[in-house]
């Protein structure tokens, strides 16, 4: 299907475990983003990528790792999950130039016990 997809949609894990959230887009967008959404905070940027092999930190990057070996994929890894990382995670993408709106995936609800 065209668009942006995330997997899994729901994940329950335990403190200290490694978790990887997947994001895939079919638009060949250059830019990809990871946000987390928490009550009282709104959406906050974790990491973004301007192209394959180019990534940079956002507002709340601690405890997360990203990679982007292919344009269409942008996985987010929690190396050692903590309870404070319980959240809903959204991936987004944007084209290279002209229009700056970002298009969001359906989200992954992550619970860390």
């Amino acid at each position: 299907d065209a668009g942006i997809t995330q997997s899994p949609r729901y994940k329950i894990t335990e403190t200290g475990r490694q978790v990887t959230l997947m994001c895939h887009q079919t638009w060949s967008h250059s830019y990809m983003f990871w946000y987390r959404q928490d009550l009282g905070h709104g959406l906050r940027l974790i990491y973004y990528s301007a192209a394959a092999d180019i990534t940079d930190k956002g507002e709340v990057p601690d405890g997360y790792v990203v990679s982007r070996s292919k344009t269409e994929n942008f996985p987010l890894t929690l190396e050692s999950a903590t309870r404070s990382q319980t959240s809903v995670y959204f991936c987004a993408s944007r084209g290279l130039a002209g229009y700056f709106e970002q298009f969001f995936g359906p989200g992954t609800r992550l619970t860390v016990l």
Partner: protein
Amino acid sequence: EDQVTQSPEALRLQEGESSSLNCSYTVSGLRGLFWYRQDPGKGPEFLFTLYSAGEEKEKERLKATLTKKESFLHITAPKPEDSATYLCAVQANSGYALNFGKGTSLLVT
């Protein structure tokens, strides 16, 4: 530091009762102001981009306007299917991220 404040936090309207949502912002050079709709359990859905003061965009019952300090999302004769959380975000000229407000939760009954 860029800031986005949305008001009210929650709004309840009768079907057909028009109203406006507010988004106040401070940003060091506005590249764009964005409105999104978010339904429960789903990702934000793009509605509008506004680039400069005085610009207006319309889509069905929604109309977004922009001044140098704030944006309004006007909802004309709303229907129950317009119930959702509406998010406002700004992007500065200097960055790539969207800086989001906390949203306005709209319920139309």
